[in-house]
């Protein structure tokens, strides 16, 4: 549920990729405000800058100019170490390709971020089982990712992303590799977690069926946010 409290503010964000002598602008001055509890999607055609925007907001990359203020902290001025700490403490990631650790079980994957945060092992095990249960995968706790379907892997990834109660969950095309049924189940899960845990969700997609489920849609084209329904 939206609280009206601002969690993220992006101003005039720009990012240019350089390959040799070729410069490719990915973001050309993006403005965006996200409130706590929002369930928003960033939509646009391939190459419009969705992934770049999420990477910058998540502190995985640095902008060329502009500001990113997350929970009052200027991410664009943070060091690598500070960004690592902020990601660990406040931001969860769901990737298009699931990106579970193949040598860890589903349970261990969900526990992983809690382990990084030094949560005691008994507590993190209990919480990880609860999370797997909430995504209907308790019985698959001891299976490795290669033993899970795409949909199951993505649900484990979502469980991992919210395991430390992050303030913001960034999901980059989370349903891209899923069939319709699995995609629908995943979105149900994300909505449920948004409602029950209060985490803010920002996910990118170019799938209109997924867009329809978002309570807010941010349109991105050629590295710019279109004014229609793009936020504050």
């Amino acid at each position, binding site marked *: 549920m939206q609280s009206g409290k601002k969690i993220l503010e992006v101003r005039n964000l720009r990012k240019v990729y350089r390959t040799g002598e070729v410069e490719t602008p990915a973001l050309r001055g993006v403005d965006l405000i996200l409130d706590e509890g929002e369930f928003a999607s960033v939509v646009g055609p391939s190459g419009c800058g969705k992934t770049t925007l999420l990477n910058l907001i998540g502190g995985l990359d640095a902008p060329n100019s502009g500001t990113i203020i997350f929970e009052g902290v200027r991410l664009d001025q943070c060091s690598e170490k500070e960004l690592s700490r902020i990601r660990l403490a406040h931001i*969860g990631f769901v*990737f298009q390709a699931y990106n579970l650790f193949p040598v860890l079980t589903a349970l261990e994957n969900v526990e992983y971020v809690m382990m990084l*945060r030094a949560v005691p092992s008994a507590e993190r095990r209990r919480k990880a089982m609860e999370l797997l249960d909430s995504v209907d995968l308790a019985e698959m706790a001891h299976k490795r990712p290669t033993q899970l379907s795409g949909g199951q892997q993505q649900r484990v990834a979502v469980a991992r992303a919210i395991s430390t109660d992050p303030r913001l969950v960034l999901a980059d095309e989370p349903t891209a590799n899923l069939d319709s049924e699995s995609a629908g189940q995943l979105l149900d899960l994300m909505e449920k977690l948004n409602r029950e845990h209060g985490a803010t969700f920002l996910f990118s997609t170019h799938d209109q069926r997924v867009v329809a489920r978002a309570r807010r849609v941010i349109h991105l084209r050629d590295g710019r946010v279109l004014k229609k329904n793009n936020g504050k």
Partner: protein
Amino acid sequence: MRTFFALAWRNLWRNLSRSLIMIAGIAVGLFGLIVYFGISNGFIYEMVDAAIELELAHIQVNKQGYLKNPIPKNSFAADSLFSERLEQIAGVEAASGRFKAAVLISSAEKSSRVELVGVDPAGEGLVTGIPSLTVEGEYLQPGDDRKIVLGGELAKSLGVEIGDKVVVMAQDKNNELQSFLLRVGGIFTSSAPSWDKTSAFVSLETMHRIVNHSGELTSILIRVSNEDTVDLIAESIRKSLAGERPDLQVSTWLEISPILSQSIDMFNNFVWIFYLIIYLAMAFGVINIMLMAVIDRTHELGVMRAVGTTPGQVMLVVLLEAAMLGLVGVAVGGSAAWLLNSYLSTHGLDLSYWSSGMAFMGIPNVIHSEIRTGEWALSFISAETAVIVASIWPAWRASRLKVVEAIQFE
């Protein structure tokens, strides 16, 4: 932390062939190193053993200046009680006196310059192994008069056998040439034919008559009960003799034979050079394989960083992987080396093919490998350390990956 250990251990077996190659590299390197170490030690111990058993004993007491100028004039007065007193010192197992002089020994066929050594027949076998080397006839016994025991090569060179007579000519105390007729009573053969060719033994009594140095010795040979305490015991003997016999010096076998000492240093230096070469080769192999492992998992490492793993933790995981591979390699190589060393220490390594070269150094044809506990530990620890040090750079590279580029890496 347990998760990092689990991650590292399970990652080892994701690419089985690569892990096995690295393990094999470490195992073979360590195996070669330990086996070389053991054989090198065997060479040294046999060399030292031969020198101590044939000539030096563990400790010698000589007149000051004798070792620099080993001539009969540098002898010292000592009776049999003197040796008995030395045997009372803690750690001394046996002591026996000798008188050595260069003489000319002649048979009907030939003459030869030799080192003639007058020994106490009762005590000589307690301080050297020479009596046990007798292959024909009998070694000197108490009371033997005008009996000589020759080295096998010397006897062959002179064309004499047991019972034949030889003439010994020497310069006595008054610089007069004396000649004595002696009967060959025994022939011995050692591991050093060159030494056999220039060595002969008579009783002290016979020697004293030949050189006219009654009641004098050129050296007292001392055997100790524990070779590791030779230096301490030598010091005890020095202290014991300091006030009473300032004319005497006490030397360990290492101090007496600088050539032996240099040979030992040479072998030891070769071992360190071998260590360096093996570990360098091992290190390059480890660097190569760990770099490949890091590159292969660039995407995964990027995800680890994305979800909050610090660069230091990424480095730790890679180092743990290398350390675990190292441990497995050390275990495999160490076990194989232990097996071979057990065999070689019991049965020895037969180097008969190179017998002439070995004989020159006084080393027998069969070398028994020997490795002490500390040397085992040093090999294992240094191998594992080399693996970990070699993997620091790949681990550091892994920690420095740019997150977003790593995630997008295919």
